[in-house]
């Protein structure tokens, strides 16, 4: 995450991480999730699903903060987020820290 200065509560606030699940066969390729994802995690794939639509795919899962906007915005109930557990994220130093990703 990019900040113009170190947030004062950066040692206390942990940025949650989400895992995105896409039910590809249910997707009708509306691209709402791709367009409105605040972290630009998703992108439309060039592949087709059974219905002949292009489903999205996860471009950079590490950026997902589990805001669930894609899950709520999806008119087909075809995408959802789950919170990544602490262990899964790993105790890597850069996670949740400022200026780690620019």
């Amino acid at each position: 995450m990019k900040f113009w200065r170190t947030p004062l509560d950066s040692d206390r606030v942990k940025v949650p991480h989400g895992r995105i699940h896409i039910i590809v066969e249910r997707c009708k390729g509306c691209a709402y999730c791709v367009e409105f994802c605040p972290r630009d995690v998703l992108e439309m794939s060039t592949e087709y699903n059974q219905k002949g639509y292009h489903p999205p795919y996860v471009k950079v899962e590490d950026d997902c903060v589990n805001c669930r906007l894609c899950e709520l915005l999806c008119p087909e109930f075809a995408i959802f987020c789950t919170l990544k557990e602490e262990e899964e994220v790993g105790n890597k130093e850069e996670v949740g820290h400022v200026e780690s990703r620019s």
Partner: protein
Amino acid sequence: MSNGKPSEEHHPMEALLRMDRIPHIWCSTCGLGTSVSAFALALEDLQYDLDKICIVSGIGCTGRVAGYVKLDSFHATHGRAIPFATGLKLANPQLKVVVFSGDGDLIAIGGNHFIHAARRNMDLTVICVNNFIYAMTGGQVAPTSPLGASCSTTPYGNYERPFNIPHLAESCGAVYVARWTALHLRRTAKSIAEAMRKPGFSVVEIICPCSTLYARRNRLGDGLELMKFYHENSIIKHGADPRDVDIDFQSPIVVGKFVDRDRPTFIDGYNRAMTAKLGEKFEPYGVAPAEVHDG
């Protein structure tokens, strides 16, 4: 919805949907699925007993909602969602009755029922999904179609002045009136939850993109383009005068919570009038047993 953790295969919304009917019939980039998600989010927030919530829909694309949501639901005839819901509420006042229907069903064919339910202040929550057109029957002009919009029955543009739903509801006596677009999900959910908590006739209008008919006929792209339009052209104005929130063709849309006031509901009025006339002989109707003892 909030029962248990979602697994790899199961969408958390599936607990609230009749999965044997999914995929639904709504077109790609239609905003109705999103509106249903907002409703589900509101239910998640309210934590009501789902057995006490009923959902009534009329006919139309939005009318399908009653068939997809796994609550006690009824798919009424065209325009008659509110009369059915009124009967349901009066027969069992403990129920939370939600009317989830479209603009054509509620404001056009059921317009008379809408104004009278608002006048009586029936304890209903009306979620009116407005897509500006009769979508299911082929894109005929609706009483909410903006001036100048092309519809299959007005190929040279609509020349009838459309209804302003918040103003209609407010002037007829609704106690809670809000308008959001399908993009304002969390705000819609919050409004639906507030409306369901509020006793009386509450209306939440959701502006929803119709890709196949409204957007295509008017050369506005698809639902995604309309969603982007809402993103850029929605003005949040809480407490705005409902008279000033008309929607013109592709004009900025004023959204927000416009009305939140208190009026006695139909059942309150009945109990009050009868108690005044009959005194002790009258047993108030629709009051939960515990409240009777307290009072």
